[in-house]
C-alpha cells in the first residue's frame, strides 16, 4: 500500500507540473481548482478506477464525470499519463483544432466521459449513468467531482434528491471543498454550509476527508463502495492552488494562467 501511495504522490506532482506547463502555454485557464483536485483525480485514475486506456469505451469500465469542467487540465494530464493520448497533446490545450478544449468535450478527447463546463449539470448525468449501469446489471461505479461553488446551483440538489430516491449506491461523488470561487470566499458569496448536514438530509452517506491525503481518499472510497442502497458524498477539504506557494488559498488564481516567469517559479517549487 505504501508503495501505491508513494507512486500516486509522485504522479500527483507530475500532474501539477503538467497543469502549470499547459496553462502557461495556453495563456488562459483555471489553475486554482485544477491544483486542488489533483490527488482525487490521480487516486481515481491510478488506483481506484477500473479502466482501459487502449479501449476507452470498454463497457465495464468505471466512469468519471468532472462536473467542475473548468478543471479539465487535471483530467487531461491524468488521461495523458494513463495513455489515452500523447503527452505532447497537452501543449495544444485551448488552441484551435486541439483535442483538448477549454472545457472538457467528450467528442474531442479520448477518455472524457461527458462534456462539462456549465456548472451544476454533471451530477445529474452521473446519476443517469449509474442508473443505466444498474438497469443493464453492470457492476461499474460512477465517480463524480463537484466544485464547492457549483453546489449553489439548484440542479445539484435536484440530483441529490433523486440519487437517494433511486438508491444509486454505485455512485460516489467527491466535493472539492477548496472554499473559494471566482468572486471570493464561498461563505461570503453564498454560503453552502452546513454541507455535511445538507447531503445527509438528502439521503446520502457523507464522509469528510483531507482531499490531499491519498491514503484517506483510497480508504474512504473502499468504505464507500461497501455501503449499499444510497449514494455517497466524499467532502474533500482541499487548498485552492495546492502545491504552488503563491497560488495557495488565493482567489486571484481561480481563472488566470501563470506567465512564463510565474510558471518557472511554480515548476521549481514542484520539483
Amino acid at each position, binding site marked *: 500500500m505504501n508503495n501505491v501511495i508513494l507512486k500516486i504522490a509522485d504522479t500527483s506532482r507530475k500532474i501539477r507540473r503538467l497543469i502549470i506547463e499547459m496553462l502557461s502555454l495556453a495563456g488562459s485557464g483555471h489553475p486554482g481548482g485544477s491544483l486542488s483536485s489533483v490527488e482525487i483525480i490521480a487516486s481515481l485514475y491510478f488506483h481506484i478506477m477500473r479502466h482501459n486506456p487502449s479501449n476507452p469505451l470498454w463497457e465495464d469500465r468505471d466512469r468519471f464525470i468532472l462536473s467542475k469542467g473548468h478543471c479539465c487540465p487535471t483530467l487531461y494530464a491524468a488521461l495523458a499519463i494513463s495513455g489515452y493520448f500523447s503527452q505532447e497533446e497537452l501543449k495544444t490545450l485551448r488552441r484551435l483544432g486541439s483535442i483538448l478544449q477549454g472545457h472538457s468535450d*467528450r467528442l474531442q478527447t479520448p477518455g472524457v466521459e*461527458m*462534456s462539462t463546463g456549465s456548472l451544476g*449539470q454533471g451530477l*445529474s448525468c*452521473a446519476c443517469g449513468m449509474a*442508473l443505466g449501469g444498474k438497469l443493464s446489471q453492470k457492476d461499474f461505479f460512477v465517480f463524480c467531482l463537484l466544485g464547492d461553488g457549483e453546489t449553489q446551483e439548484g440542479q445539484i440538489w435536484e440530483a441529490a*434528491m433523486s440519487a437517494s430516491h433511486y438508491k444509486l449506491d454505485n455512485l460516489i461523488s467527491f466535493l472539492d471543498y477548496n472554499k473559494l470561487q471566482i468572486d471570493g470566499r464561498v461563505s461570503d458569496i453564498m454560503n453552502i454550509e452546513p454541507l455535511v448536514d445538507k447531503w445527509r438530509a438528502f439521503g446520502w452517506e457523507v464522509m469528510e476527508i483531507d482531499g490531499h491525503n491519498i491514503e484517506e481518499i483510497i480508504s474512504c472510497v473502499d468504505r464507500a463502495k461497501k455501503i449499499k442502497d444510497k449514494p455517497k458524498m466524499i467532502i474533500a477539504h482541499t487548498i485552492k492552488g495546492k502545491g504552488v506557494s503563491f497560488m495557495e488559498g488565493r482567489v486571484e488564481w481561480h481563472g488566470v494562467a501563470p506567465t512564463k516567469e510565474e510558471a518557472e517559479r511554480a515548476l521549481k517549487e514542484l520539483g
Partner: protein
Amino acid sequence: MEQEATRDAYGKVLVELGRQNPDIVVLDADTSSSTRTNWFAKEFPDRFFNFGVAEANMIGYAAGLALAGKIPFVSSFAVFGSIRPYEQIRTSICWPNLNVKIVLTHAGISVGEDGASHQAIEDIAAMRVLPNMSVIVPGDSNETRRVIFACCEHKGPVYIRLGRAKFPLLPDVEFKIGKARIVKEGKDISLIACGLMVFEALKAAEMLDRDGISARVINMPTIKPIDREAIILAAKETKGIITAEEHSIIGGLGSAVCEVLAEEKPAIVKRIGIQDVFGTSGKPEELMSYFKVDARAIYEEAIKILNFEC
C-alpha cells in the same frame, strides 16, 4: 371524422416500442398522466422514471442514460421540458450529441384554459437553433406514430412537439425525417403548415377552392432539417406562400421557410402564427380564432396575397 390527440398516439406507440426494444427508457417530470407516458409506466415500471417537478435534473439523467447505452424518451409539457431546462438541453444533450428524444406535449395555444403559463409558443424557435438537434411537429396521430418510430432509429437528439387537443386524422402516409409532403396539389398559392395547422390549411384550401383558387397544402413536419426543395418548388410553382403554425411567428416554421426563400427564391410570404404575444385562457377553438391561427385566417391572407399579385 375520426379524431385523436397526438399525445394519445405517443402514449400508445411508446408501449409498442417498449415491447420491441428493451433499451427504451421513459422519463417524466410529474406530468405522466397528461403526456400519456403513464401507459408505458404501467407496463414497464422498471424502465420508467419520474423525477417529480425537476426538469433540469431529468435532462441530465437522460444524458447519463444515453451514455450508458439506453434510448431515453423524455416527456413533460412543452414549456417545462424545453425552455425551462434549455441550457441543460443545449450543454448536456446537444453539445455532446447524445441520443435523447425529447417529446413534449401541450404545445401551443390549443392547450386552452390553462392559459399563458402553460402554452408554449416559443419552443420550436428555441430548439431549432441548437446544433445537432432535429425538430419535428407531427401533423396528426398517424404521423406521430411514424415520427416516433423514425426518431427511435435516428441517432442523435430530437425534439418532437405534440398537442393536448383531439384533432382529425390525415391520410396515413410514409414519414421521413426532413421530408415534406404535399397533402393537396394546387397551383395558385402554397400553404405550408405543421402540427394541427395542417388540418386548418386543408380547410382553408377547401374555402379557397369554392372561390376558384387552387391551393397547394404542404405538411412540413420536420422543421429542422427543413425540406428546402419543397419550399423552393412551392415558390417557383405558385404565386405566394402562407405558413401556418401554432407558435410565435418569430423563429418557428414561418421563419425557417423565409430563411430558405430569402437565400434561394425570394417570394411573397405571410406567416400565420402567434403575433409576438403571450397566450391566454379560453377554449382551444376560441383561442385559435382569437389569435387568428385558423382556417379563416389562412383563407383571408391567401386572398390578400392573390389580389396583390393580380
